[in-house]
């Protein structure tokens, strides 16, 4: 165990030394409801070279992809308008984009009796949605 930890520590030091220049820009797109209960969660990511950032086209495709993951079909249908709203929001970001790490944008939708059903867009790293 100690040897394994030392090896991990050394590799982490190397990773820390090389960022942020070589890190990828990244965003996460999620559909969730009943957080803290059954915790239905569907997630998709998009990454890009840091210099370019994640594009609007990638964000739109990421939202489409996470939408396709959602089950059951009734939830997928219920999430449609929130997915569209988030795609519209992403489309309105250029040219300034979004650069604050950890920024998230939630769009809620009605699904059964849950009051927390939502589509989240999260900026994990990088200056994204500039183009």
């Amino acid at each position, binding site marked *: 165990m100690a040897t394994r930890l030392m090896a991990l520590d050394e*590799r982490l030091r190397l990773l820390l030394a090389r960022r942020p220049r070589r890190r990828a820009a990244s965003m996460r797109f999620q559909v969730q409801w009943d957080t803290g209960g059954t*915790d239905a969660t569907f997630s998709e990511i998009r990454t890009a070279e840091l210099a370019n950032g994640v594009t609007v086209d990638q964000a739109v495709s990421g939202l489409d992809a996470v939408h396709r993951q959602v089950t059951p079909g009734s939830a997928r249908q219920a999430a449609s308008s929130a997915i569209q709203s988030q795609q519209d929001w992403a489309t309105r970001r250029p040219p300034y984009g979004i650069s604050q790490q*950890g920024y998230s944008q939630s769009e809620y939708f009605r699904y059964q009796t849950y009051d927390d059903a939502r589509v989240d867009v999260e900026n994990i790293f990088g200056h994204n949605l500039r183009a």
Partner: protein
Amino acid sequence: MIPDALRTALAEEGEEASFAATVLGLVLKRHDWQRRGISSDGLLEEVLGDRDVAGLLLDVVGDEEAAGLLAAHLDAASEPEPMVAWALTKTPEVRARETLIALVDRYAGDPRKEHLVFQAVVGLSRWRSEEARRALSAVAEVGVGKAQALATQTLVRWDS
């Protein structure tokens, strides 16, 4: 167990701490997903750029210890990193909730800490409780910008 490299980075301020917090937050989230049987989206591997390191971290990092380390940063740092608060929103650990509430109590009305408070509000908006309601009410009353807007929207949603 938290590797020394992450402990050291988290003790710094700025980019070093932010990266370490991002990694720990993604590990905490993945642990939560594993417990709930939710599939991984691969973000931890993408951020690290190293699948082996991601796998090792998932094996060795303990959630309670990680939440304690992140909370200690927020308690001690003169300029707490917003990504540390973000990381704490990724775990159901009680210590995380207590720390986010304390963060709101400390910084709710400080315009320089808008993004930090926003992260705490994001986390508290997912954990409905009387303590969370009190904290969100404080941000709705004296907070600024997007933190105030999200706190207000959350309270309206909870009351609707």
